[in-house]
């Protein structure tokens, strides 16, 4: 008989032994495979019009389909580079009418056919203010969507422009009208559908364990071909470092962004991992608020002055900041853009780093160190301002300190306000800041992102610094209507150079994304705007499968 004193040890050993032995599953063959993604946030809902966060987007990519999608080239002009999804073919019926023919094989996961009525319903839902979709402004140039017959959807546009096709297909994932029509639109946020979606994509929703995991399973009858990996699991971890540890410890297979140089090094050292670098879709900048924080109807006493902004921009050595904070994991952006955009061009003219010239310009503006305290002043007012930065971002806090030091060298005093992200969001949205280090993500089109953030269209929206230049906006309008990609690129270049000369912000860094993926996964392709967009083509060959690939549940 087991002595009582040994009992606890015995129990612990039994528990560890049982838990340590993975059950051998039954799946064999080419269509097995389990991919565990270490996600660092949990979606609020999986209902596409209401979900803008990254993880929800990744999951929705698998469960729902667009009519067509951008290709790996990320070309948003015309329709040549787009890949058919729900729409088998399309044609232009006049300059303002686009006709999509749906693939008759497409089925919802409850086996109901996908029809043009679903497309019409989807457009009406996305553009309904009651739904409050963040994608609604991006659809403003589409006048209507109607059904010609059960498999033909007709899009009518308000005007002609090169990215008509992109606007028609990129922002909307088609929704099942037969399931969502009975739900009142003002209750969509609370709808059960958002936590148990039924789509028509390559993967079916299986389960959502709150704050733990979300599981999908391949639709073996998917009309565009059976997905290569059978099970997809998003393992939810509220902490980047722990998520990275899970991948390194072989308890997860994918971490799509490692973010810091240290994490990249650790992933490279892990034998079972491959590291992939791909273009990032985020850029970070120091925004100068051109309106007074105390009264947003009045100009900012400092930053309304274009020459002062230019001088301050010249005082910052962005290349050295980047080197010390990020090594080779990022680039200095040539303007308000991430490396994702096809208009990225390192030859775009920018203000030089030149502290001597910055000093001379500040002197010329009357900002001199009259009292010898190391800080420039004018009319008794020191040249001093605050940098607002979210406390949750280690990188941006680090940048704030580095900027503080560089500005100090030219006689500018900086105070750093590190605040909770929700407070930063509120202060930035209401204009209560001097400067703020902000990040913006781009979708593949320069037209939507740049116009929303740097023109008057973004006032009250995401043009937080309230930058306005009639010259810039005129060229942006021209670029948005250019008929060829080369012509558009020239115009965008001119527009960005105009903006750079006005220095509404200092563009600090554009991160490259570095992903860690288990080596057993084959055919890994990461599309920069959405790493999981072509996940259905990834494979785990039978000879590389491990225990978790074969698990049946």
């Amino acid at each position, binding site marked *: 008989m087991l002595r009582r004193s040994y009992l606890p040890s015995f129990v612990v050993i039994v528990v560890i032994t049982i*838990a340590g032995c993975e059950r051998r599953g039954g799946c064999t063959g080419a269509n097995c495979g389990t991919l565990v993604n270490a996600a660092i*946030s949990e979606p609020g809902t999986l209902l596409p019009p209401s979900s803008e966060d990254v993880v929800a987007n990744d999951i929705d990519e698998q469960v729902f389909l667009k009519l067509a999608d951008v290709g790996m080239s990320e070309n948003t002009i015309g329709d040549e580079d787009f890949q058919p999804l729900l729409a088998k073919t399309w044609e232009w019926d006049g300059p303002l009418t686009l006709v999509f023919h749906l693939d008759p094989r497409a089925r919802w996961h409850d086996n109901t056919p996908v029809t043009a009525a679903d497309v019409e319903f989807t457009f009406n839902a996305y553009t309904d203010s009651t739904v409050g979709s963040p994608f609604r402004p991006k659809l403003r140039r589409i006048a209507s969507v109607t059904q010609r017959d059960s498999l033909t959807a007709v899009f009518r546009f308000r005007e002609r422009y090169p990215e008509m096709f992109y606007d028609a297909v990129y922002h909307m994932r088609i929704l099942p009208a037969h399931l969502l029509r009975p739900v009142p639109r003002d209750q969509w946020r609370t709808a059960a559908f958002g936590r148990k979606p039924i789509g028509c994509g390559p993967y079916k929703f299986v389960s959502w364990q709150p704050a733990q995991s979300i599981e999908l399973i391949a639709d073996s009858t998917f009309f565009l071909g059976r997905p290569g990996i059978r099970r997809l699991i998003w393992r939810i971890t*509220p*902490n980047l470092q*722990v998520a990275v*540890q899970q991948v390194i410890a072989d308890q997860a297979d994918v971490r799509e962004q490692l973010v810091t140089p240290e994490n990249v090094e650790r992933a490279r050292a892990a034998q079972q991992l491959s590291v992939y670098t791909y273009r990032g879709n985020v850029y970070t900048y120091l925004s100068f608020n051109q309106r007074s924080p105390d009264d947003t109807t009045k100009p900012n006493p400092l930053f309304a002055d274009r020459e002062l902004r230019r001088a301050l921009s010249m005082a910052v050595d962005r290349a050295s900041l980047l080197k010390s904070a990020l090594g080779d994991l990022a680039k200095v952006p040539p303007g308000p853009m991430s490396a994702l955009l096809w208009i990225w061009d390192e030859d775009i003219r920018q203000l030089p780093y030149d502290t001597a010239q910055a000093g001379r310009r500040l002197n010329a503006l009357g900002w001199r160190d009259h009292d010898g305290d190391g800080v420039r002043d004018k009319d008794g007012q020191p040249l001093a301002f605050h940098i607002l930065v979210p406390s949750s971002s280690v990188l941006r806090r680090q940048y704030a300190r580095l900027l503080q030091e560089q500005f100090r060298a030219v006689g500018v005093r900086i105070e750093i306000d590190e605040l909770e992200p929700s407070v930063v969001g509120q202060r930035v*949205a209401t204009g209560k800041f001097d400067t703020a280090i*902000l990040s913006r993500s781009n979708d593949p089109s320069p037209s939507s992102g740049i116009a929303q953030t740097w023109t008057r269209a973004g006032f009250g929206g995401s043009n937080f610094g309230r930058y306005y230049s009639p010259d810039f906006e005129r060229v942006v309008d021209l670029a948005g209507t250019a008929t060829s990609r080369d012509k558009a690129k020239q115009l965008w270049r001119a527009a960005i150079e105009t903006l750079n000369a006005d220095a509404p912000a200092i563009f600090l860094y554009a991160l490259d994304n570095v992903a860690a993926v288990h080596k057993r996964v084959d055919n890994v392709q990461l599309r920069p705007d959405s790493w999981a967009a072509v996940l259905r083509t990834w494979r785990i060959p039978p000879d590389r499968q491990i225990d978790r690939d074969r698990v049946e549940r």
Partner: protein
Amino acid sequence: MTVAAWLLRRVLASVAIVFAVVTFVFILIHIAPGKPCGGQNEIVDPAVCDEVNRQLGFDRPILEQYGLYVLALARGDLGYSFSLHRPVRDAIAETIPFTLQLAGAALVLDFALGLALGIYQARRANRLPDVIIANITLFVYSLPTFWLALLLLLVFGEKLAWFPVGGPNNPVLCPVIDSAFCLADRFWHLILPATTLGLVGAAGTARFQRAAMLAVASQDYIRTARAKGAPERRVVLHHQLRNALLSFITRFGLALPFLLTGAVLIETIFAWPGMGRLAFEAILTRDYPLVTATALIASTMVVAGNLVADLLLGVADPRLRVRTASDLDVVTA
């Protein structure tokens, strides 16, 4: 009858305290800077935010919102979490089992190990084992919990791969507990976070318990028990320990709320889906209904824990039992 009256008085006072706390938290979170819109790391378009706030009623005057909240609360409705897109009641109900498991395991380790060490140290006071254990417990007690958690994760999770790196289960094999294997898997995932919490707690408990045991060791009744020839085991466990339990019970009562309120840092670091993590993320996203509900539960547990501790003190020490109305002030002091 007198005890019943005392109990009724304490319960009524507790309800008032909980109501006051909820009111205070409701007002505080509403007037705190930051808006209930967008995620933790993103700035959402203000126009979209305004529409969301309008739909959720956050654009109404705070008094009106408070009145509606109290009315809903009276019906047992804790509101709707906009960050989780679901009723607060459901979100909390799902976290409670996880918090109970983690906090329960940690408290068992804390008090069992702490009590045993404290007794052992007291019996060997100022001798080598006592000195060694005292230094070790002081070292462990002084460790920041989050640092210990990260260290254990790094060593036992990443480097040695003996234990899972975060989460309450293996999502591939056991997304839900539906077998003995999955139950064992849950225990396996529980070991690192519970050990982190329990070890630090046990170090503190051991030091308190040692001091309490030594304080009663020199009492007359202990000497009398020994003089009467009582076995040493009986002297320690029956006479010395029982009288040294008062501080332990007080600590236990104060620790009870932790069973439901969770441990914010540990739950976040170990990706444990408990109440602490839920409350923390609710505060970051300014999820007003969720924050207020977690405050409601936390304050209820605190007053309940104190009430239980007072009752247990009466059980452990007959001198503290209520006999007359005039004793009430002694008990509630």
